[in-house]
């Protein structure tokens, strides 16, 4: 789409081409192209023993910026934030120098494709995983920035959503480095482009909307009215309606808050064994769950206890299922 000339030549590397690292002397043989964008081209390559992904660019600063982010993710123990980083180097070829980094190859379709193939019930689970990752990322002082289905690959089994392309990942409080209009709250006239948690959560809501509108849609009036109007037209978004609204309006302060509401929304609302009474309290619970952090309504003590109890039960159940 938007490429300068030397990037174009980079996207023409044919299978079998060997990329030699100038500093670390590693060699990578190109298998095929995985994708390209504004910042470079990503190839599936083979090193001495395995398949890895290699991102190459004619712009050393964008490579180093992304490497900086990936390195700081490595320090977050036991997390699955971004692909693991293996190597950073330059490649000198016919008088030109390119920079590249080598990372874990994340095999799998992107989030939208995955849900189209496997069914809408997967959306909830993937959202829980994504929001848990974002929570960690935010805690470390980062905002992901360019959050969109193309940058969310679903790997597995066990099924796990993974964020790739840290080109937009920005230190909290700074201006978002890179974004895509449809997922950007600035584009919709719903806030600034200063990196904060809510910026990412807005994008998560747009990803949810995107699952019902795979072709996306354009801005007309913008604002919450257009977006919620689109949401209401799609029955498959009913389940997430209040969550979407809260995320778009910036009502969630943390990914954890949004995650709790997703978890609550995923609970069965009717069960045969449930007494009518219980069903009612469950659906109430759901509604309160969605509003809890928003209106700060004070519920009864008993109700609160019930919510906490049920939520923690469900959470343990969820973990139990995950372990299985």
């Amino acid at each position: 789409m938007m490429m300068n000339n030397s990037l174009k030549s980079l996207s023409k590397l044919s299978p079998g081409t060997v990329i030699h690292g100038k500093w670390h002397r590693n060699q990578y043989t190109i298998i095929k192209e995985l994708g390209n964008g504004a910042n470079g081209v990503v190839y599936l390559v083979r090193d001495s023993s395995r398949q890895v992904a290699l991102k190459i660019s004619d712009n050393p600063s964008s490579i180093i910026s992304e490497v900086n982010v990936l390195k700081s993710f490595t320090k977050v123990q036991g997390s699955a934030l971004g692909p693991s980083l293996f190597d950073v180097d330059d490649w000198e070829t016919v008088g030109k120098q390119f920079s590249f980094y080598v990372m874990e190859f994340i095999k799998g379709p992107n989030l939208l494709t995955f849900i189209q193939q496997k069914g809408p019930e997967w959306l909830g689970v993937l959202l829980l995983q994504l929001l848990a990752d974002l929570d960690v990322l935010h805690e470390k002082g980062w905002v992901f920035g360019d959050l969109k289905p193309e940058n969310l690959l679903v790997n597995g089994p066990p099924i796990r959503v993974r964020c790739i392309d840290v080109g937009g990942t920005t230190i909290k409080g700074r201006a978002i480095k890179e974004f895509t209009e449809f997922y950007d709250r600035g584009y919709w006239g719903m806030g600034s482009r200063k990196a904060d948690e809510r910026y990412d959560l807005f994008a998560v809501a747009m990803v949810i909307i995107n699952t019902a509108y795979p072709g996306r849609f354009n801005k007309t009036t913008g604002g919450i009215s257009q977006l919620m109007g689109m949401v209401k037209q799609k029955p498959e978004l009913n389940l997430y309606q209040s969550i979407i609204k809260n995320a778009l309006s910036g009502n969630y302060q943390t990914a954890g808050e949004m995650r709790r509401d997703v978890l609550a929304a995923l609970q069965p609302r009717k069960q045969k064994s449930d007494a009518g009474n219980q069903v009612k309290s469950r659906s109430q619970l759901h509604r309160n769950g969605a509003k809890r952090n928003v209106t700060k309504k004070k519920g009864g003590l008993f109700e609160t206890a019930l919510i906490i109890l049920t939520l923690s039960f469900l959470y343990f159940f969820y973990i139990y299922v995950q372990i299985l």
Partner: protein
Amino acid sequence: MRTGTLKQILLITDGCSNQGEDPIAMATLAREQGVTINVIGVMEQDVIDDQGLKEIEGIALSGGGVSQVVYSQQLSQTVQMVTRKAMTQTLQGVVNKELQQILGGTKKMEDLPPEKRGEIMEVVDELGETVELDVLILVDTSASMTHKLPTVKEALLDLSLSLNARSGSNRFSVFAFPGKKVEVEKLLDWTPNLESLTTIFSKLSTGGITPTGPAIKEAISYFQQKKRSLRSMLSRDDEQFFEESI
């Protein structure tokens, strides 16, 4: 480190100049005076001809900036990307000069092993966030641009949204060429946000000629005119801050 205020000209056009000085010569002149020129070529269904493309790339190359040709639907994203890329490029240049003094010779960041580049890039990133930025926007309002102007307006509003998310301050001004009776007309004096554009753009009239060269020349002189003693004091403070951070 000496960064002062970054000065950029953002030229938005759809083709070739046909009057006055050679725009590439004027771009070279701008660069000599510390002003970077970025060029965005806007296409509709039509394609920009070879000559127009050459001119667009030539101006950016001589003006030390970035160029990009896009369809008008992609204008918003491109405008902000090009501006940021050019900022990084300029700041990178400043940092490289600094490096040369420390390391000697003609060392650039690329001459250092990758492990050593990370910290330098952090400094560049931080400068990009905090540096003061002046962007003078030069809009081609020749007849063929008429129906693209609403998109240009949207893109500029979007640009101010992006840049105003930084902690460093921004100032924008907008010129159109050709102007009503003159080659270049000032539409908007230096201002931190572009909201007022909305009214100005609807009153724009378009003309037949494309005096790109004279427009750039006029734009450079506009950078030179302004005096701001208080601001330069402030930016000196920033420089000290940058010195500490490297």
